[in-house]
């Protein structure tokens, strides 16, 4: 399967990255990682890019890593649409202090606009 993973800078993105690497390793998917440009996140685009590079090389995975500029949701869906991807993977929301699942703006945009199957990683 041809998988596109979209990463913003949050902890949920790190979780999505780890889980996707594990799965890619197990089933032999083709993986492309898109690092998004998002303001006000825990990690900058550059930090996230390096984190992805590091974890992928530790796992001995040969995946393409792309930086996408502009609105994170729109640039990710656009990129997915241009390529031949079977699945788009993103983080599956944050948990509030109360324990409520909260989906962010990227998730909402991707779910409503992506032409491919979307996977939310929790």
């Amino acid at each position: 399967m041809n998988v596109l993973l979209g990463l913003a800078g949050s902890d949920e993105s790190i979780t999505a990255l780890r889980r996707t690497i594990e799965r890619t390793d197990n089933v032999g998917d083709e993986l492309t990682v898109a690092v998004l440009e998002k303001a006000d996140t825990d990690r900058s685009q550059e930090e996230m890019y390096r984190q992805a590079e590091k974890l992928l090389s530790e796992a001995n995975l040969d995946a393409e890593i792309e930086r996408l500029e502009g609105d994170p949701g729109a640039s990710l869906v656009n990129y997915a649409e241009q390529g031949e991807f079977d699945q788009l993977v993103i983080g599956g929301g944050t948990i509030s202090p109360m324990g409520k699942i909260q989906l962010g703006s990227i998730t909402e945009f991707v779910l409503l606009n992506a032409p491919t199957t979307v996977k939310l990683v929790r």
Partner: protein
Amino acid sequence: MSGRVYPDTASGSFPAPPSTAEDQSDRQIEFQAVDEFEGEVLDDTVEMYVEFDPTDRAQGIPPTGETRIRNWLETIAEHSVNVVARHGEDVIGHAVLVPDSDDPDSIEDVGDVEWELAIFVLQAYQQSGIGTQLLKHLLGHAIELGITHVWLTVERWNTPAIALYERVGFEPTGTENFEQEMGILLD
């Protein structure tokens, strides 16, 4: 504090627990603040959530099954502020505030942190005015404790809940995805 935008004017004069009121079906409902969320009151609240119809879950809470319900309540218990509504011996409504803090042990002034609110009323008791009363009593209790900033998220299509929050003084904070975030400033 976070970047949430709160209303310009503070809301006040909410009733504080304990109090008893008759609901719209002539049932005597008691509103009680919880001192320590453990023991009997915790057990009674677990029981309420075991009875709770999962079609009314909101963003994953309450979880289902007694063990997971208890885990959830025990996780938030220690630092939370709770008001329950009782009909006779049974807890039939629960409203709670949880501090938005990575290190709740170090909170010195409860007015320095923002508190997340959730409220649930057992189905057989909904639409009888209990939710409104319970919410007001929780806010009244919060004011007594010195809490100033309260926020919540609610599914955007949950119009009865949004209307209820607006009526007591909550306003949108500016964050709106599948969930609408709202905040209230207390006097």
